[in-house]
């Protein structure tokens, strides 16, 4: 196994945006607008609002920042 761990900038942006927007209770549309990759933005935009809201509840409960 290589020491070179594959990474992906667009996916990293998606994951960071999801956590940030969910943590402050923002909408999927808000998260989608913050993304540069159109396909990933479309995926976020397609989220069922109920599922997005539950994800926000989960992040509010379990999310921990580096400084926490």
């Amino acid at each position, binding site marked *: *196994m290589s020491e070179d*761990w594959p990474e*992906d900038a667009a996916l990293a942006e998606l994951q960071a945006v999801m956590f940030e927007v969910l943590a402050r209770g923002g909408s999927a549309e808000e998260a989608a607008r913050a993304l540069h990759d159109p396909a990933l933005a479309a995926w976020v935009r397609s*989220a069922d609002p109920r599922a997005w*809201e*539950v994800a926000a509840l989960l992040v509010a409960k*379990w999310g*921990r920042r580096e400084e926490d």
Partner: protein
Amino acid sequence: MRTAEASRQRPLVGLSLMPDAHFLALLRPLLERGAIEAVEWTIDFSFEEEGPAELLDFCAESDRLFGHGVGYSPLSARRSQHQERWLAAAKEATRRRRYRRLSEHFGFLRAPPFRSGPPLPMPFTKDVLRIGQDRLKRLADATGVPVGLENLALAFSREDALRHGEFLDALLEPVDGFLCLDLHNLYCQQHNFALGPELLASYPLDRVRVLHVSGGSFSQPSMTEAGQLFRRDTHDSEVPREVFALLPAALAAAPNVELIMLERLSESLESPHDLERDLEALHAILDEEEAL
């Protein structure tokens, strides 16, 4: 079909251990009565503390110890020190004690500046697949244990829910990994997206080695009318009848199940009876399956 199934070994009935004294005290009479045949230990618990070493060692020596992880975050897009430390700790945990299998969650729970969170879904793309396959290979190499993934309760859409099985199959294929099929998570998706038996059929059922069963709860999303509840995997109640009802179909369609594991949060338990009721129901379903 029934003839072929009859030759398989009866799955074990197990319990996912919580590390606190209250849970372990409730466990003792159930172990003495033989209601628990295997245990699942969340290896993250013992990264900081030893846990119930005597019980874990006993289960390991009889090949009835299954490992579970919650902190690896196999679909995180960025390498992190947290992930590397988790992998090193998992390597040490599996060196110290023999686990029959080790599962993690399908999703990501870490993205800087967040060091942890709930497992969240990702879209099924070639880039996510490439990262997830790499992280699973690293986990398999580090631990030397057969590795697998557990299906998520949360999906962002009906279409995503129906693709999770195909996604998991592709992630697991390079390491010949197993599926830890959580039937309560499956029930959550069925309820939340009005899905039927097609959801179970969408999973790679020949990869299933472990079934999870648990209870959960409902949330009332703010934008839906009263009564349109969203099911969540909260592990804080008894197993609902809908999950027990899924079990015979899952056992019939998944020919390689080794273990049925009950999950329940410690703080939701008052007496051993709260666990015993669900464990007895699992044994009874297996008895009925054997009698067919």
